[in-house]
């Protein structure tokens, strides 16, 4: 077995996703491996050697003379090279894990070919060719102790500059409250995602609000029934969309966000987006759909400043072709405050539990394949099922829409959650399915065990052996159902590992943080200026203005973290409090009266 194969096998154990990526990535011959005078291999790109051509170990040791090792801060190494400096750091650090950030997959591949990674793998996490925002969203950077491998910095200057900018941006975002306006769709699968985004952002300490377009859904759909004339329907729909654009603009003008994020199928026409741009804030779109099924991205993709997708590869090429250059891969996720393990009563267990459960809509491939499962204790939950079909009797909720609470109970109660991605034309599994649906993360976060059809993007997100189990066909599915019904302990362990992974890396909070860093890396100056100008946290600014040590400053402390702080916030609090009014409260009430009188007098 050659070194590369041995290394890959090791990597598959410690970092299977990375191992898969390495395997799939074609080998790039940009790295030359030469021997140093002491016989150790060193990589060379063009004329730049990434280590000393004499004694790379000594060079590494010398370079660490001034590096401050402590047990608190985590060593993070910019640039791998062939890892001589990494080994030196591993020798000296007490930290249990160090991070090595290497922008170039070619270097890492060459490293695997040339260096035995046995000494590295237990305590090193390699982060290879990963966008800085993703790195920062998945790793706590507050206590990073960065070592810069100078030759690697020279080779990937742009990348590491972006890395530092991302760190700076992340700090600003964590320290301040960003205002985000989420534009919801009228209906559909992305509506829950839109709501989760709002919740996640608010839980992170930012201030997010929605434009609740779903409240206008009935009106939108009623247009179709108002006339049979198709041209008129089109005209009316267009006008309705225009109205919605105005509504969204009005909300934005009022809310004054730092960022506008529209979710898939949000009713924003190109014209409406142009209007929103007058607010001079970034406008982003999260396309959480299959680009092959829903093609409206062609009309709007280039209108947005940022276009986030759950698919890449071919989709990225197509987006570039239409001028939507600023695209970024951002998969779906779960919301831990919603998707969680919950205790179920006996009654609930009776209602929701089963050997196999499926929660979702009656798409073609599911209708075709699920009859195979009728021998099992199989429950179906969801909408758009033909209740008169053979599957009808298994549909538990009569096609009625389920709320989040019900869904979480389903995920918690089932022994096996079936997660078959929808397809309108495959009869079972889509052999070239790429993106991963939100259900994947939601089930995992609930601690549920799931069987999921093979998806090409899944390996990057979860370990397909330890953290999640996949099937490639309905036959495969049936075998695995049998296996895991008989090996429930194993299923539990996998579910537990899956939950840990998802909560560590795949929550909506992670996605939002990644999105914010990505967007504001390009807009940091504008953002920080807005914070200074608008005194972003009005309570903090008010305390500063009033004086921290003054009675008023101390009084204002209780309002830290209040959304849209104003005199009204204080008056509202006073009105629900009990007991004698304090001096500060009386003065606030008097000030409020004066402000009102002056406002009334114009």
């Amino acid at each position, binding site marked *: 077995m050659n070194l590369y194969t041995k290394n890959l096998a090791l990597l598959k154990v410690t970092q299977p996703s990375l191992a898969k990526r390495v395997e799939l990535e074609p080998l790039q011959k940009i790295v030359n491996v030469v021997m140093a005078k002491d016989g150790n291999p060193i990589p060379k790109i063009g004329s730049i050697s990434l280590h000393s051509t004499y004694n790379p170990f000594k060079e590494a040791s010398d370079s660490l003379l001034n590096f401050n090792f402590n047990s608190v801060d985590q060593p993070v190494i910019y640039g791998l090279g062939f890892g001589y400096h990494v080994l030196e750091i591993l020798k000296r650090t007490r930290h249990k894990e160090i991070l090595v950030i290497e922008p170039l997959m070619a270097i890492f591949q060459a490293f695997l070919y040339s260096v035995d990674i046995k000494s590295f793998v237990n305590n090193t996490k390699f982060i290879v060719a990963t966008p800085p925002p993703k790195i920062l969203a998945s790793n706590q950077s507050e206590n990073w102790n960065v070592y810069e491998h100078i030759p690697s910095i020279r080779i990937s200057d742009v990348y590491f500059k972006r890395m530092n900018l991302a760190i700076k941006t992340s700090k600003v975002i964590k320290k301040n409250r960003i205002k985000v306006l989420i534009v919801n769709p009228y209906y559909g699968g992305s509506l829950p995602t839109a709501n989760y985004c709002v919740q996640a952002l608010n839980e992170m300490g930012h201030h997010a609000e929605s434009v609740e377009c779903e409240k206008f859904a009935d009106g939108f759909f009623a247009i179709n029934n108002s006339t049979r004339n198709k041209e008129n329907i089109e005209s009316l729909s267009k006008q309705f969309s225009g109205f919605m654009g105005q509504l969204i603009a009005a909300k934005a003008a009022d809310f004054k966000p730092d960022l506008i994020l529209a979710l898939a199928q949000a009713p924003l026409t190109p014209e409406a987006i142009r209007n929103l741009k007058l607010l001079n804030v970034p406008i982003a779109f999260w396309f959480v759909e299959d680009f092959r099924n829903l093609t409206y991205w062609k009309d709007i993709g280039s209108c947005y400043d940022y276009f986030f997708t759950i698919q890449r590869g071919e989709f990225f090429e197509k987006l570039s072709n239409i001028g939507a250059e600023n695209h970024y891969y951002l998969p779906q996720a779960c919301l831990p405050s919603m998707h969680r393990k919950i205790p179920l009563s006996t009654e609930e267990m009776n209602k929701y539990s089963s050997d196999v459960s499926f929660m979702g809509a009656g798409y073609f491939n599911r209708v075709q394949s699920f009859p195979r499962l009728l021998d099992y204790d199989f429950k179906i939950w969801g909408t758009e099922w033909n209740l008169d079909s053979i599957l009808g009797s298994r549909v538990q909720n009569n096609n009625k829409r389920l709320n989040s609470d019900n869904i979480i109970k389903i995920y918690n109660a089932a022994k096996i959650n079936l997660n078959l991605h929808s397809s309108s034309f495959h009869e079972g599994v889509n052999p070239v399915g790429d993106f991963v649906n939100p259900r994947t993360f939601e089930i995992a976060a609930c601690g549920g065990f799931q069987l999921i059809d093979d998806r090409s993007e899944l390996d990057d997100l979860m370990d397909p052996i330890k953290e999640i189990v996949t099937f490639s066909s309905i036959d495969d599915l049936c075998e695995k159902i049998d296996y895991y019904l008989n090996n429930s302990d194993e299923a539990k362990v996998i579910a537990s590992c899956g939950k840990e992974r998802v909560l560590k890396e795949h929550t909506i909070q992670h996605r939002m943080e990644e999105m914010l860093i990505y967007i504001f890396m390009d807009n940091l100056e504008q953002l920080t200026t807005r914070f200074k100008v608008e005194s972003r946290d009005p309570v903090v*600014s*008010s305390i500063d*203005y*009033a004086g921290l040590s003054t009675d*008023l400053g101390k009084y204002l402390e209780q309002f830290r973290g209040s959304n849209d702080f*104003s*005199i009204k916030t204080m008056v509202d609090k*006073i009105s629900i409090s*009990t*007991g*004698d*009014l304090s*001096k500060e*409260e*009386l*003065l*606030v*009430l*008097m*000030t409020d*009266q*004066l*402000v009102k*009188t*002056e*406002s009334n007098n114009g």
Partner: protein
Amino acid sequence: MVKNILILNMTRMGDLIQTTPTITGLRKKYRDSNITLMVTKDFEEFSKNIPHINKRVVIDIKQFRDRKSLNGFLWIDLYRYLESLLDELKINNYDLLINLSHSKLSAFMISYLGVKNVRGFGCDSNGDRITFDPWMQYFGTEPFNRRINPFNLVEIFTRGAGVTPENNPIHLIPSSIDTKILIKKFSNSIKEGDLIIGMQAGSSIEGRRWSPKSFAILADGLIESLGAKLILFGVDSEKELGEQIVYFSKYKDELIDLTGRTNVDELSSLVKRCSYLITNDTGTMHIAAAVGTTVVGLFFAHAHPYETAPYSPGHVIFQARIECAPCSYGVECNNIVCVHKVQPDHLLLMIQRHHANGVWETTKTMSNMDEINIFNTYIGEDSRLRLRSLIKHPITLNDVIREVYAEHWLKSLGQEMDRSNIHCDIGELLFREYDCSNTDKLCMQIDDKMVTLKSLESIASIGIKLANQIINLCSRGNLTKTIDAVKILAEEIEKLDKKINQIGFVNPELKSITDMFVKRKENIQENEPTQLALDTKGCYAKLLEECTSLVSLLIPVSNKFKSSNIDTFHAVVSSINVEVPGR
């Protein structure tokens, strides 16, 4: 011993003038005390004309108006300003505070200042509304019972401050300006001995204004018949009104338009020089009354002579007598008819007569009088400033109730002056001032109200019993054992209160009584059950007392009307008039 008095009067010019009897009364009552008056910046200059004040404190919010926004940090600046102002006031340790501002701001200020002896609108330590002094409590109910209120606001404020309005007229410190020089400054056409008449066509609320055309027609009539010299007064924003009057007048060059041209001192001096001031209900009207100029007042829209008539005798007031007059505060009429009911001729004829013989009376040539009221202010037998109706309109229930309330509230709410020698025969007065020829229906209405008052008495008695039961239960000691019984009784009391409130709404003539009951209950601050029950009992006892008092006042009035009806009947059916067979 009251050494330091603070008066909060952050209101308008007219209100400031109406406060002068209060201040004069306080000065007489507390000769050696320091009186501090708090006013707003707008009236800082004018407040120097208010007599008997030792110190003025100005609350200057104007300084913040020009700043960028009240929603940035400006609120902190405002906060600091208030804090500094009030902390400075606190040092003075006021032992009496009179709040004539009736605003939440003033109520919070009182709480902040922590003055123990307060009269007026305030709040308790929890920020809940509380009204100190029965007259101020009455004032709190007055806006909802305007049509049956007999008291001028001056009277209410003054009594609320614990002093008497009688012998304490409104008064301003005379201006030191030489009026002759001042007149010459504005006009060469006015000579010594000329009859000068002022006109104030503006007012703070547009709906209250008599039309410029009406002023112009009247001005023409006064010039033609009396050779009067007319001066138009008003603030800068009322310039257009002055221009319109000039435009409509036949004697454009003879009108002296001073709108927007005088400061307050000059205004006072010029008004004093006028023999009459024809005016809407404005601050200038009160200046005129204070400086001794006869007022011809025009009261439209919300303006109500019973509340804000110039507080001295000898003035005349015109008002529309229509169903919707006066209208409620806060409404905006889109079809103003009241201003058209009073015609220029009405005023002209009466001013001509008054100028000739010094008496306010209607003339036979006056027409279209069914829909107007004309009042004359005078000092009544009860030493109070009163309104005499110069048109004998048919008497209504409101007229009766209003008159009865005058006597009733003076007894019930307390007043400083010994009135034991004063007796006002209500029935006589009503007969004198109203057309009482047809009072059958009125008698039934009065009887009906007496029945309702009796039922209120019963409810009040039940309330007293329930309160007593609670007191008994609480006095047994172990409240935890009796708490359920107490709760049931409390619920019964709540039901009673709802009934009382409802009676007030169904019988607007009696709403004053029921509102006062509610006001007293609102003022109860106790949490301890026994004391709470005692205070509640007190409220019911007061209600009972007031209902009984009202009935006792209504009975002789009702009897008088009934006996006058009998006399009329007798007159109709005397033997001479009866058809006798064979005669």
